[in-house]
């Protein structure tokens, strides 16, 4: 018999309810209500929570009333860090913004798969578009089904993420309610820049991934 | 009303004074006292060391001895937790289950009992000293008794009560742990004693003789200033109940 059958054979004999759990069916309901209830409905206030949570994880928050304004912000960020190129992997909004920064920045589309990681490893700034944002934790959801590549999120030193205001949800529970099974199955959730505290618990940003994560909330 | 005394081993053999203090307090409050003669041990040391087979007869004997008592009070959170919480983990004689259930409902740790019955108003003695309070693990975590001892302490006049940080950190006793891994246990009690010293308290109050023995042992050996005092003794002294006692 192979390992699979051996293991499943042993497990077949087991079927039991948890003797310890003191679970009542109303609990999930109560829990969901309490989780929901701790968030305001209005998107203005959600944006404030998002900004606070993002800053708590050392991310940077901007809000822009228009594509033009967002483009200006992107330009400023690039300028202040002396970036002259930006990789764009995005949806419509990111592409629209990219169109408006071409006079100061070289906009690079996602390179062919074969050279992708090599090329991206040398580019310092990327712009991506989040599918959903979560106010509670300042998390951004990127389902692969809507992405071309995830490497811009990870290989660049600075990542600028565009989030549309109507894509902002209250909390993680709400996020998973909004994701389709196909979306959630292949997904990365990003919260703040990459970080480590493995040396004497000293927090350092930019472990193996980006050092800066900038979110532009777009109306 | 009659209170039956449950006197844990350490109280019996090492710290009888805290037992006697408890008796004085209960009498001061008008209770009749009943001492269940022939009591020995609840079995906790053996249970914690894994010897259930050896301790089950002892536990069963304990239930038989106490199951019919109207009210039982003990000056130890750990021993009360043994019965209220840990006896359930034992494969006891099923015919004793109703007795155990009844026993659990009528068995109280001293401070829990005093506050539950709103006696703290009648226990406002005077104790002009700085004290701190150590939360014993089983009393605070298993029985959830954290507020009661503090309430009793704070009802005392002129007492200067200072919390140590953190008050509910284990003192490192842990029964046989304290000699099986004595090096680790010592480091733990050291940390506890340092946090006691940091409060500048003259007395570290506790509600479990085992923790107090451990803490006292370290304080004494290292010439530290603070002394330990069982909360029953604190209450008894603050009310001056010692007079006339043997």
């Amino acid at each position, binding site marked *: 018999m*192979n*390992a*699979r059958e051996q*293991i499943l054979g042993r*497990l077949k004999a087991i079927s039991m309810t948890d003797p310890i759990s003191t679970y009542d069916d109303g*609990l999930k309901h*109560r829990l969901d209500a309490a*989780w929901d209830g701790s968030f305001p409905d209005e998107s203005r206030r959600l944006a404030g929570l998002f900004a606070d*949570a993002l800053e*708590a*994880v050392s991310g940077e928050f901007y809000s822009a009333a228009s594509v033009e304004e967002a483009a200006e912000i992107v330009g400023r960020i690039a300028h202040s860090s002396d970036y002259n190129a930006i990789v764009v992997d995005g949806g419509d909004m990111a592409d629209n913004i990219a169109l408006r920064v071409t006079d100061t920045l070289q906009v690079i589309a996602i390179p062919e*798969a074969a050279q992708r*990681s090599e090329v991206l*490893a040398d580019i310092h700034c990327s712009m991506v578009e989040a599918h959903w944002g979560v106010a509670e934790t300042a*998390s951004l959801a990127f389902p692969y089904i809507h992405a*071309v*590549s*995830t490497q811009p999120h990870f290989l660049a030193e600075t990542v600028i993420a565009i989030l549309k205001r109507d894509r902002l949800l209250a*909390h993680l*529970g709400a996020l*998973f309610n909004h994701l389709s099974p196909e979306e959630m*199955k*292949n997904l*990365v*959730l990003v*919260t*703040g820049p990459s970080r*480590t505290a*493995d*040396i*004497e*618990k000293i927090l350092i940003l930019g*472990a*193996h991934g980006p050092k800066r994560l900038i979110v532009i909330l777009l109306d | 009303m009659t209170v039956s005394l449950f006197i844990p081993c350490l109280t019996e*053999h*090492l*710290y009888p004074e805290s037992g*006697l203090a408890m008796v004085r307090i209960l009498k001061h409050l008008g209770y*009749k006292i*009943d001492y269940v003669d022939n009591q*020995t041990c609840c079995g906790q040391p053996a249970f*914690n*060391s*894994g*010897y259930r087979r*050896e301790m089950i007869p*002892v536990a069963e004997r304990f239930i038989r001895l106490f199951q019919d008592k109207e009210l039982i009070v003990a000056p130890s959170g750990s021993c009360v937790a043994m019965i209220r919480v*840990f006896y359930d983990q034992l494969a006891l004689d099923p015919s004793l289950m109703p007795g155990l259930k009844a026993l659990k409902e009528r068995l109280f740790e001293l401070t829990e009992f005093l506050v539950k019955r709103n006696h703290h108003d009648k226990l406002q003695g005077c104790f002009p000293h700085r004290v701190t309070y150590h939360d014993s693990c089983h009393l605070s*975590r298993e029985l959830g008794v954290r507020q009661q001892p503090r309430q009793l302490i704070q009802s005392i006049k002129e007492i200067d009560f200072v919390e140590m940080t953190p008050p509910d*950190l*284990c003192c*490192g006793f842990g029964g046989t*742990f304290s000699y099986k*891994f004595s*090096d*680790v246990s010592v480091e733990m009690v050291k940390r506890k004693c340092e946090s006691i010293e940091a409060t500048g308290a003259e007395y570290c109050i506790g509600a479990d003789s085992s923790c107090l023995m*451990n803490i006292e*042992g370290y304080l*004494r050996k290292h010439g530290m200033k603070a002394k330990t005092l069982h909360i029953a003794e604190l209450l008894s002294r603050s009310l001056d109940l010692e007079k*006339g006692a043997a």
Partner: protein
Amino acid sequence: MLKPRKTHHYIRQALKNDCLRAAVGKATDLAVRKRQDLVNETPYWEDLRHHVHHLKSKVLENPEQSLMTFEARCIANGINVHWAEDAAEARQIIVDLAAQKKVKKIVKSKSLTTEEIELNPALEKAGLETWETDLGEYIVQLEGKTPSHLTMPALHLSRYDIGRLFEKKLGIEYTDNPNELLQVARQRLREHFLSADMGISGVNFAAVEEGAFVVIENEANAHLSISIPKIHVAIMGLEKLIPSLSDLPYFLKVLAPSATGQKASSYVNIIGGPQQHLMEEGPEEVHLVILDNGRSNILADASLRETLFCIRCGACLNICPVFRQVGGHAYGWAYMGPIGATLIPLYNGLSEGRYAPFLSSLCGACFDNCPMRIQIPKHLLTLRNRIAESGKTMLIERVGMKIWSMLAVRPRLYRFITGLAAIVQQLIPFDKAFPAPGYVRHRALGRMDSKGFRSRFMDSEDRREGGR
């Protein structure tokens, strides 16, 4: 490998190392405080704990069914599923796979399960260049040791230690600046990410409903390890199941605060098969090794199965006053601290693991802090009982307990003997080594009262006035 005889030696080593203890103390204090702040902000924390416990017990209620469904869904998603009875089989599967695919270089992201099965030595023996990519794991790999904490692998090393280690092993100029150290590691590992043929990761959660698994991290190393190389191998203990990805938010909500005192981890990677068809990127093959290694027997054990609900957050380690003193290496195995003390005898056998469950004062703080509501103290007691009953404790203790048991049901004899003991103790000079030598080295022992409570009470006024 676990060496029970060395337990006391490890502990003495740890207690002698003041730097280690200061570091462990500082790190755990910080984690405890940050966790507590987040818990305080979450009034429904207790409900969350109950709920995740329930989800875990639900999915493991019928483990055979859950695993079969999970396997089928994984296969439908294009994941290759392998099964391993024990550590040796799991190692072999991965080594064979590497050989078959002509793999030369492997990048690994943090995985405790690979520590459990001691994978790295096997990969090295097979001539595979293997790099740990989590900074802490990388440091520990260079040191040639094992992690000393579930979530903080290099907790036992100071920045000076790490500086010297990098100087020696990587040939760089000495620095103890943490950021410079990180930059060195980042640069070296970046090259490895880009040139590795295989990425190996652990699994935090495996969703039955969707046939997908979850890898959580902060450094982005896991994402890079599993998205750049052509082959991704993930290894999971069979208990990692959760019912569905829609239950994941509850686990995420408790995990990050408990693990690192964060609201959320930086990256949550959900992998439901090779992603090539979605975005021309990611591994061409995803392999998942499902490991038993004793787990099915633990699941069958009604009183201890709950120990498998552990999500390896480390909260029980951080709050544990014993762990704080001795650190992780004293436990001698991949899992340490309070949960380690239960898992060590469960995975290694009662005989090999005979000390671990006793390395606890049973204070109960671990249970209060465990997001999964695992009743660790209760399980330690159960294991202590099994160890005692299998005759794995010291003979003198066993005999002593028998005598005690015989006496404790005979009150008069009991009184006589304890009275005698009191007299004997009075004869021995204060603070001498009786009855517990280790105990009194740094603590005065209480004096037994020669009369005891009973006779004092019987003689006292108290009894005459108030008695029956």
